[in-house]
Structure formats: structure tokens, C-alpha cells
């Protein structure tokens, strides 16, 4: 039986489909027994899938000065 540390390491590899057959087997056996690592797997997937939307929720704005500066740089081209 692999440890939780190893199992969580393999979870990310699994998300990228990079597990060897033995790792796949080790992870499956661990997850069948360990509800904590099953939670980790769900949460890890959730974080990975939603991270790419972060900027849509930031609503950061360039300062008026920064915008003027960029306009000036483009004008000088």
C-alpha cells in the first residue's frame, strides 16, 4: 500500500494521464481504501478546472496614467 503522500503525488500525474500501469494500480488500490485522498482528488480537480477563470473575476484596471503611457508609446512608433 502506498502512502497518502505518494497517492496525492500520483493524483496530479493521473490528471495529466502520465501514470504508468503500476502507478495506476497503486493509486486505485489506495483510493479504494482512503477517503481523505479521494477528497483530495476531487478538490485537486476542482482547483485545476476553475483556476483558468481567475482573471474573469479579478476586474483589475490599468491606471489612467498607465493607459496614457501606452498610448504615447504606440504613437511614437
Amino acid at each position, binding site marked *: 500500500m502506498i502512502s497518502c503522500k505518494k497517492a496525492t503525488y500520483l493524483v496530479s500525474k493521473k490528471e495529466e494521464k502520465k501514470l504508468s500501469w503500476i502507478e495506476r494500480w497503486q493509486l486505485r488500490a489506495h483510493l479504494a481504501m482512503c477517503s481523505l485522498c479521494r477528497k483530495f482528488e476531487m478538490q485537486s480537480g476542482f482547483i485545476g478546472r*476553475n483556476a483558468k477563470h481567475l482573471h474573469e473575476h479579478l476586474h483589475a484596471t490599468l491606471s489612467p496614467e498607465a493607459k496614457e503611457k501606452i498610448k504615447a508609446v*504606440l504613437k511614437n512608433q
Partner: protein
Amino acid sequence: MPENKLKPDQWINAYGDALYSYTLARINDTGIAEDLVQETFLSAWKARDSYKGEASEKSWLFTICKNKIIDHYRKKARDIVQPMAETSATDQFFDSEEHWTVEDKPTDWAMDYASKMDNKEFYKILNGCKKKLQEIQQAVFSMKYMEDLDAAEICKALGITSSNYWVLIHRAKLQLRTCLEKNWINLK
């Protein structure tokens, strides 16, 4: 169908803030993010004759911006890649048997993990948690989960081995998960 045309005089007002948010979500430094947005517009301006109108003006600009961000990581990699102590990297989460410690073991988030998250508060906290990662972890995390690059591309850009890569991803995920749980889930 109308052909896509560039309108450079409107770029900054139309896309400046969106490109800036996009960059700032990936590079937590307002000064560097401003510079990269400026470089994006500058490169776009210089390349305007090569724009064929196949992509929309907006997605064309975002593609240029994305390349600027990856370039930035590539150039910076030399400074931010540190020799890694693999043994200690994730030990805080696990006990001597490598099982979850009581403080850091995952608890139930009582939500649909398959859902798309739309809660603004969640992203605010995610952003704060991401800022706490080491720069190299942030770079790897952004390239993987925000830019959708594959492991081989990221290793090549940052000059790291694939085992370094997996250790960095592993640690970034553990830290983000714990940070989200402590700051967001428990607030609900």
C-alpha cells in the same frame, strides 16, 4: 461574412483592462503586468500587417499576451528555479508514516466538485492563496492550469526536469487546497 479588421486606436480602451486582469492573474506584480500589457500592444502594432483576420482582434491580442507571459516565465526561470529539497517539500502535510496530519487532512467541502465556480469571493481567496506560493510554483501552476501547457512544454520553458515538475505541482496543489480550505470553506 465581414472580415475582421484591426482598430489599433481603440485597443487600449477596449482591451487594456481585460489584458491587464489576465496578466495579473498569472503574474502577481502590477508593474510587470503593466509592462507586459504594453509590450503586447507594441508587438501587436508591429505585427499588424501580418494579421489575417482569421481570429477576432480580441483573441489575437490575447494570444500575443499569453506568449509574453510565457516568455516572462522563461526569462525569469533562471532566478526562480531553486535546487529542491524533495524530501522536505511536502512533509508539513503528512506525518512520519506519510499519512495526512490531523491539521491538514482534507475535510468535506459540501459542494458539487464538478460545478463551475462563479463565486467572486472564491476567486479572491484563490488569488490570495496563489500569491503565497513560491514564484516557481506559481509559474508552474499558471502554465499548467491557466495556460493549458503540457508538462513537457513547461519543463522545457523553465529548464526543469519532469520529476521537479511533478514535485512542484504536487506541492502547489497541497498548499492551495489547504489555504482554500482554511480561508474560504470554513467561512461559508
